[in-house]
Every structure is written in C-alpha cells, then in structure tokens.
C-alpha cells in the first residue's frame, strides 16, 4: 500500500471484491439512474473512489455497504449538477435479448417510470431499503438523516408508487 491515497500495486483483494459484487452494484445503480451506461459510470466512479482507501474499508464489517453508500452519494451529487455527463453514443452497449423478453421489458419500463416519479431522497431510500435490504440505521447514516425520516420517506415513496397504475397492476398480479 502506498501512501497518500495512491493506488495499491497489489489489488488482489479489491479485484476479488469487484468481481464478486460488481453485478449487484450495477443493478442498484441502474435502479437509481434508469440507464445502464450511467449505472456503469456510477459504479466505476464509486469503486475508483473506494480503491485508494480499500485497506481501511475492508476492515469494516461491510465493505459492500460502504461502497453502496458511495454509489448513492455520488448519484445524489450527479443529480445536483446541471450537466450530468450524459452523452449520445453511436454503439449500443447491450446486445439482443434471448428468447421472449416482452414481459421483462414491461416490468422494466414500469419500474423505471414509477421510480422517476419519486424525489431523489425517496428513490435513494427505496433502492437502499427495499432493493438492497439495508438496515434503516445504515440508510439513515448514508443520507445523513434520522431513522424516523427513513421510515416516513419509505412510507411516502410507497404511497406515491401505488398511484402509478402500471406498477400497481404489476404488483397486484400473482405472477408475471
């Protein structure tokens, strides 16, 4: 480990963490951004910020939770900026979907559009609390709010999501 936040030469442990967790982290990032390219950028940015402090972070109880906090806070910072670094791209990063994926697309669009109706804080709380199953205390610490505020924000967000007819109809179905 070099000093002053330098990148370690031996990054085996960090590489192992990235290999094991990057898929889950990208999924969380997609729920925040609604865009795979932005989600990938967000995860890369968060991991690049984490890497120089990895020696310290890995001694914590949950490095995963720490990285998720960085992801959420980075996303909130991006949202506050007027320009969010979005660029048109000529090549589409994803390939054709195999098989019948129509139902999955319907869910994806409904969830994405419903999440877009939430405020930034509501969206972050729902993603962390409902999707990532983070304890309320961790969510509160990440967003620098009280546990009570986390609870009320979840309730408000769910109430708002229930007003979305497409999402509600999907939630009412027994299976997709």
């Amino acid at each position, binding site marked *: 480990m070099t000093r002053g936040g330098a990148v370690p030469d031996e990054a085996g442990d960090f590489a192992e963490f990235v*290999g094991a967790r*990057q898929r889950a*982290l990208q999924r969380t990032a997609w729920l925040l951004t609604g865009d795979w390219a932005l989600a990938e950028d967000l995860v890369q940015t968060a991991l690049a910020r984490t890497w120089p402090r990895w020696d310290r972070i890995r001694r914590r109880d949950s490095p995963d939770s720490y990285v998720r906090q960085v992801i959420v806070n980075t996303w909130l910072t991006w949202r506050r900026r007027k320009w969010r670094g979005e660029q048109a791209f000529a090549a589409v990063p994803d390939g054709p979907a195999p098989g019948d994926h129509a139902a999955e*697309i319907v869910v994806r*669009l409904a969830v994405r559009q419903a999440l877009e109706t939430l405020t930034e804080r509501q969206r972050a709380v729902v993603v962390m609390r*409902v999707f990532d199953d983070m304890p309320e205390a961790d969510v509160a610490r990440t967003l620098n709010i009280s546990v009570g505020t986390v609870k009320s924000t979840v309730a408000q967000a769910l109430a708002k999501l229930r007003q979305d007819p497409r999402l509600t109809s999907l939630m009412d179905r027994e299976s997709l």
Partner: protein
Amino acid sequence: MTATQDRLRELMEIAAGEPPRSVSITQLRRLARRRRTVHRSVAAVAAAAAMAGLAFGVFALSGQSTVMPPQYGSTGFRGPVILPPAAGVPEYYIQQGQPRIARARESSPWAQTGRIVVRDTATGAVTATVRCPWAGSQVWAIAATQDEAFFIACAQVSGSELHPVVSGTQIYRFQVTSTGEIAGYTAVPGGWLPRQLALDLTAAANGSAIAFRVGAHGPVSAGARYLVINTRTGAIATWTSGPIQQGGRFPSDLSLSANGKELTFYTGNMTRFLSSAQLRNPNATWGDVAEVGPASRGGSLRSARVLLPAAALAELPREIRPYLRVSRDGATVTVVAIGSIPADAVRAHLVAEQISVATGLVTRVLFRAEVGRYTKTASGGSGEFGGSASADPSGRYLILNFGPKPGSGNGWLDNGRLVPLMPSSGADTW
C-alpha cells in the same frame, strides 16, 4: 419488510435484470490513477480547465460547434439548419414531385402523385425522371437499397379512388449511375402480381430481398398477405396475418433486415378501427414490434417473436409510425413516429429514436421536432401535417420528410443533425 415491499423488490429484481457489461478492473485502475493525479495537481487542473475553456471558445467561434436539430415551436417555423452533406452521403436521391399532405402511408389511397425525379444531393438539380416502363402504369411504391439502387412497384389501375380496378403490378429494379441517370429498368423475378397492388414496399439494404403487403388499400378483416421475394431467384415466401377483427392488430410498417433474412413489422391497432373512447385509452392503440425469420420461410405472422412490446413505444407519438428498422447487429430498432405524444395532445411531433431490443429503453434520440398542430377526431386523427421516413440509397442514413405546416422539410439524419435536402418541400424522398 411488508408484503408490498416484498412484491416491489421482486419487480425491481426483474427490472434491474442483468448488466450488459462487467466493470473492468483495468478501467478502474485507470480511473483511480486519474483521480489521484487530479487530486495532487490542482494547479495543473486549473490550467487545463483554462485551456479547455479557450479551446471551446475557439471551437464555438469557428462555427463548428454543435448544431441542434431545427425546432418548430409555437413561435413559428424556423428553417432547417444548413449543414454540408455528411461524408459518404449518396450523390443522388429520389424525390416525389408533389409534396405529401397530411397522410400516412397506410391511409394514402392513391398512387404516388406528381413527377418522380432523381436529384443531385449537393445541388438539388434534377438529373433524371423515374418512369414506369410498363405503359399505362404508375409508381405505387418505392424502396431504396444501398449503392443507389431502387425498387419501384408499377401498377396499372383504373376506376375510382374508392373502387380501383387493378390490372396488375410489376416490380422493377433500377440503378442510378454516377452521373445521376437511370441505367435501365429490370423486372424483378417473381415481381409480377396479377390484379393486385404491392403496398408498404420495403427492401433489404443489400437488395437481396423485397417485402410488401399484397392487396387492396387499408386493413381487411379476412386478413392480409405479405410476400417476401428473393430478388435474384424470384423465390416467393408468403406470410399471412390471419383474420383481423374489429380493433384487432394489423401488421404494417414492414422492414427487412440488412441481409434480408428477418422481416420486422408493427402490430398496432389501426387508429381508423378505433372508437373515440378507445383512442383516449393509450393501451388500445399501442402495439408490439415483432419479427419473423427466416423471412424466406413464410407462414403465419402470429408466430412472430416480439422484439419490442407496446410499452417500449408508449412515449412515442402514436398516430403514424412510418418507419421501423432493425440495426445490423439486431441490438436496436429505429422507430420514427408522428402525432401527438402523451405529454402534448395539441401539437404533432416527429420523433426518431433508437430503442434497445434487450431493454426496451431508448438508447438514442435521433431527432425530435414539432411538425404541426393536431386535431383529434372520432375517426382517428387529422391535422395539417404529415411525414414519412425512409432509408437512404446508401443504407447508412435515415431520411425524414415532413410538412407542410408550420414548415416542411426533408433531410438526412447525421448524428442528431438534420442535413437538409434541396429542395426541402416535405415531399417523400428516398
């Protein structure tokens, strides 16, 4: 966690799906190093920012900065931004002589009107006239392929517009030469249709196949027939829609993949079939984009694979969908649609977007502009606007045509810019 939260989590799990790419440790290393450099060299960053600002200023002053697509707002029509033709744009294009007025391809009841000409892309000068070699026939449909080759459907029709009597249709192929002339017409093998019309004509970019709907105008309850013809051998494959009931889905907007192996189509309800109550219900008007393949096999279009479900098109205008094209790698579908959008029922918008087949999400907005005022009626829609889209004769660009009010235009889409054709009258072009 409550049952509601559990269910929401399930849906979020499905929605998040699988990330298309993995995060690379090499890229992370590069990013981390860049961050370290930035943090240690504040002065260098400031200098770089100053340089970047200077560079941007010079770039903007040079007139080469980003040019936005033309906007047609309520303040009135502003003409398209004039840009030089993009590299690789074909030297010639085909233009229908008379501008199209407020009609969709499916609802257009009569042949291409006016003189159809070949024009020089750079100057707009007419270099040749497209004529059906079959005496007494008219051009009913045109499709472009790459390398300045075109297909036309020539039909001999008499009688009235409502009750046409069709003698038959012959499909021809012709090539535009390097001097803008037409190097003769060749009858396409298998392209003779006795007593039938060829509608909704489309061609594979490599010219190996064409596809079209056979028959009279408008949807028919007994179902529709679609032919895919191998232009080299004349082999014909027939696809059928099956019976179409009131409010049922009607395959339209045919598109062949670049190599002619897949046939894509839109299966939305025809607005003319819908009541005003149904029109107000967006779920009744959206349809899927589906695909069958190999196109040369033939069969029932009911066996098609859904490429994009209706939900993926929900935010697009829904009155007219004049164009669909699947990318060469099959990853995206380009959709051009015209009409009112959910957020604005008053104005007509022309929207061209690329939608990912894998996610159903828009990956790129190619063009978006207001092209007219929209008046909804019980029988569908009306308004003094219209539009069409087509592949260009190189197979690389998308051509948009729109008008006549509040303005009209024709142009190539090149990286989000509309490069106008001359003259930009709003007439159909290929």
